[in-house]
């Protein structure tokens, strides 16, 4: 993980920006003009950036962990990374002549201090992870039991409420209003079942989601009902399904323990992972970042999750179209394909590869098969080869929830088609433009309501939609 850092691409750097304004500001600062003493040694990058004040800002970046770079800057910005860090990275990324960012000098004291501190903490963290003191297993088990009991109580309360809702008629749900659902969601949070809370909040939005809402409401109520009924009997279920139920309810899995377990059992999965897509969604004041990967050797698909609280960007940043060699630890409950990175074996590199894909019928069949392991799956990530978008008659609407059918379809070369669902009008047209009416490779999620594209490969380049 140490040694000479491969020069990043500018796209890779821009992928780290927390928002469009930062991206723009970063680009402005990527000219050599405002910088002095910009230099790099090994995995460290630093420089002084002239701001509006008399003292320049001191900016440093630590690239030791390619997926999670560290940033330090003396500017007062609360954005993370700030525009100075982005500007410095861009300066380096675009400096192929090596004139703007000098290579090899000793870091100045302010940078050295921060870098050394950061590496020490990282090593300490790694050490404690590896040789962690044995935890008090008895106390831990007791805590788990207590938690399990609270969830079971919450689940049976929710089960009763859902039964009552149908007994009284779903028509009543329309009059129920957000407050009642919010109370219910809060109860589930108290019961330490955040997964149930999130589903309850989603129910609240359905009655106002336009025509056909009773059908959607019944679907979601039925699936939630299935989940709360499954939880009390989770111990009787097959391992994989039990793990699915726990994760759907919201029981957290300690990723460090998971990595330790897999590496002990020799079940880590090593491959060259191609980054298929990176998508952020806002969920309850939290930015949730999903990164989908595909192993080049084994063709396995995996999803990494990363979270950013408040204004911060999730730390994990892997731009689509890049590739890295790493061990992954796969979470139990295979339907969701969740994984976490255990060990990197090399830096992030950009890849010109277009991944192999499948047909629509095969993709839907795969989704259907995955439901056996996880009946709550609403979609399945899949790479489709040779598919063509067909523009809709009615134009595209921007809201994925209330949107009816836009009429857009995605067709494959076997003459099959599914509804196309993009998160915004721009994405539909970008996909159409990339295709030009000819077949392209697309990555996205296929499910009951159609296909949601995330990435299209155009001219060998991964383009985010």
């Amino acid at each position, binding site marked *: 993980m140490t040694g000479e850092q491969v020069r990043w691409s500018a796209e890779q750097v821009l992928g780290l920006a927390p928002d469009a304004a930062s*991206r723009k500001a970063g680009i402005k600062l990527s000219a050599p003009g405002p910088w002095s003493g910009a230099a790099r040694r090994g995995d460290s990058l630093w420089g002084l950036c002239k701001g509006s004040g008399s003292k320049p800002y001191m900016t440093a970046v630590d690239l030791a962990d390619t997926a999670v770079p560290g940033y330090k800057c003396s500017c007062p910005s609360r954005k993370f990374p700030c525009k100075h860090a982005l500007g410095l990275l861009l300066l380096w990324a675009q400096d192929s002549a090596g004139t703007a960012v000098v290579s090899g000098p000793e870091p100045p004291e302010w940078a050295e201090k921060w870098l050394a501190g950061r590496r020490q903490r990282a090593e300490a963290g790694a050490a404690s992870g590896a040789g962690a003191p044995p935890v008090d297993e008895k106390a831990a088990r007791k805590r788990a039991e207590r938690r399990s009991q609270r969830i079971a109580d919450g689940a049976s309360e929710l089960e009763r409420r859902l039964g009552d809702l*149908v007994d009284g008629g779903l028509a009543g749900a329309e009059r129920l209003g957000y407050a009642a659902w919010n109370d219910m969601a809060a109860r589930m949070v108290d019961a330490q079942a955040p997964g149930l809370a999130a589903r309850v909040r989603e129910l609240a939005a359905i009655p106002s989601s336009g025509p056909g809402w009773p059908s959607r409401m019944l679907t979601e109520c039925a699936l939630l009902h299935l989940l709360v009924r499954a939880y009390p009997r989770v111990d009787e279920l097959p391992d994989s399904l039990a793990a699915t139920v726990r994760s759907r309810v919201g029981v957290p899995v300690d990723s460090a323990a998971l990595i330790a377990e897999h590496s002990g059992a020799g079940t880590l999965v090593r491959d060259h992972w191609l980054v298929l897509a990176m998508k952020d969604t806002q969920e309850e004041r939290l930015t949730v970042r999903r990164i989908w990967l595909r192993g080049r050797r084994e063709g396995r698909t995996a999803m990494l999750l990363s979270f950013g609280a408040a204004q911060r960007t999730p730390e994990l940043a892997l731009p689509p179209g890049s590739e890295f060699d790493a061990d992954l630890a796969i979470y139990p409950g295979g339907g969701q394909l969740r994984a976490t990175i255990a060990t990197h074996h090399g830096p992030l590199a950009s890849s010109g590869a277009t991944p192999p894909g499948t047909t629509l019928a095969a993709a839907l069949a795969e*989704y*259907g098969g995955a439901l056996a392991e996880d009946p709550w799956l609403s979609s399945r990530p899949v790479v489709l080869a040779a598919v063509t978008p067909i523009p809709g008659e009615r134009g595209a609407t921007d809201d994925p929830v209330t949107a009816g059918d836009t009429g857009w379809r995605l067709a494959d070369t076997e003459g099959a088609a599914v509804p196309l669902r993009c998160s915004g009008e721009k994405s539909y047209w970008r996909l159409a433009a990339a295709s030009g009416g000819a077949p392209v490779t697309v990555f996205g999620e296929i499910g009951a309501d159609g296909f949601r594209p995330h990435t299209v490969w155009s001219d060998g380049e991964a383009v985010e939609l």
Partner: protein
Amino acid sequence: MTCAAPTGDADSATDGGTATAEWDELVGAALLGRERRALPGGSGPALLVLAAVRTVRGRAGLTPAAATGAPEPAGADPRPPLPRAAALRLTHLVRYALRSTAARGWNTTGGDLAALAPEWLEIANEQGYRPPPWQIPELLDAARHRTDLRAAVLTFAGPRGLWLAALRPEWRFALRAAPAGTATAASGSGQPGSKGSDGSDGPDGADRAERQRRLWEEGLFAERVGALTALRAADPEAGRELLVSTWSQERAEDRLMFLDALREELYPGDEPFLEAALTDRGRTVRATAAELLSVLPGSALAGRMAVRAGACVALDRTGAYSTDTLVVEPPPECDAAMTRDGVVAKPPQGRGERSWWLTQVVEAASLGRWSAHLGGRTPEEIVALPVADDWRDDLHAAWSRAAVHQRDAAWARALLGPPDAPVAEAADRAATLLSLMPPADRTAWATGFISAKGLTDAYRVLADCPTPWPPPLAKAVMGGFHAALRRGASHPNHYSGVLGLAQQHLDPAVGRALLSVLIPEADRAVEVEAEAAEKARREAAAAAGDASQPAPRRGGGPTRGEQWAAAFRQLADTLELREVMRAELETRPAR
């Protein structure tokens, strides 16, 4: 068929209609509740179990629908893709520089991408690159807002751009504005729904003529102007005939605009139509017709005006002057014939009516007739003649406007005179005359003008000079900045227009060499300012008898020297950015 139905999770291809009916039954019962309906399964919870089973079973058995209505694929774009670095630059341009409607002026932070967009597009088109296809929607949006860049952007967007434009109403403008014969022709069958062809005869040609007529008869005003302009460019006679066919039914303001659309290029065949328009009901229509006739080479109106002008302006024959002198006798009245030829009888306020008539007559008279009238003199010789009784300014101003209307470079050069001549209102008039001259003469004149007079009036003179500025002009402009820096009171914001032009038009290498002198000079000015401030502080302290008195707080904002230093650095940054940008585009793709 499941996927085809928006809500239709639960119906599956295998048991089709029955499954849908079953699901609808479940939804209906759940909606009404136990009191109003016998619930399948007997209770709410039991109904939910049934619904869960139906949902998961339906989802597990999903199959795709049959595809219909795929558009014709886009025509092939044979141009090579942009080099990688240039493609990234394009992303920045599209995101940050092509959005705003107004072209921006001098911007004091960071290299200014917006100012560089036109040059970027020009080079990209010159080199014949195609954009990454996925960026074309944003390019079309940009073309929609930036009419100044529309032609360049659409050329760059190429056949895929037209293919997309045909699919989306917001982009239809691109089909109308398509650069004739380039991308349209290349796209061949690429446009959905049309078998596009660029031939003007055969069934396709007839088709096109029919479409044009329909657009002319039913289109919106802007579309009609577009149709007229396009047809005029392809076939001037047909274009005029199209206009004549509906002329009498058009509203006066539309007649004016259509007439204006002919201005681009006039043909001798247009004369009868324009002559007829001299008696139009609308006053402005009449005036425009007269103006067009006055610039139509050899038109009867220009001839009539030349006769009138000749009667007013002649060489003195009385011998009252020691050298050959022009004497001016303005028209005594504005008769009906003059009015018919577009002379406006009533002068604007503050203007004598006879001089008003004179200038209109001279302006509309064919410039080519003066030489014969004035003893075979060249334009230079005519312009050099003394003019009696203070008529010189009026006469020369009228000739200048005539030179502009008639696009007469020889007269323009004569009227411009040497660039260092101390002529009043020169900059304004010069700029328009300058635009008539060949580029090399233009820059040479501008160089002389700026060397002699500095940058104060330079903006309009420079605006029409071609890119890149040749070294002598670059040197003159930078010399102007240097002089401004050394002169006490001038700030760079007084020169923001010229600075903005410099960042777009300076050759980067030439600019860098010149700036390498200017930047240290500005830094020295900053030092001098600091020393002066320190000296003032010490003197103030001595006067107050307290050497430890703190330096007086400087009023906010950078000093004059600092502003110049920042402006020069900004200019250097932008030039560097431009050089990088050009290098990116000029790398041939490795393939």
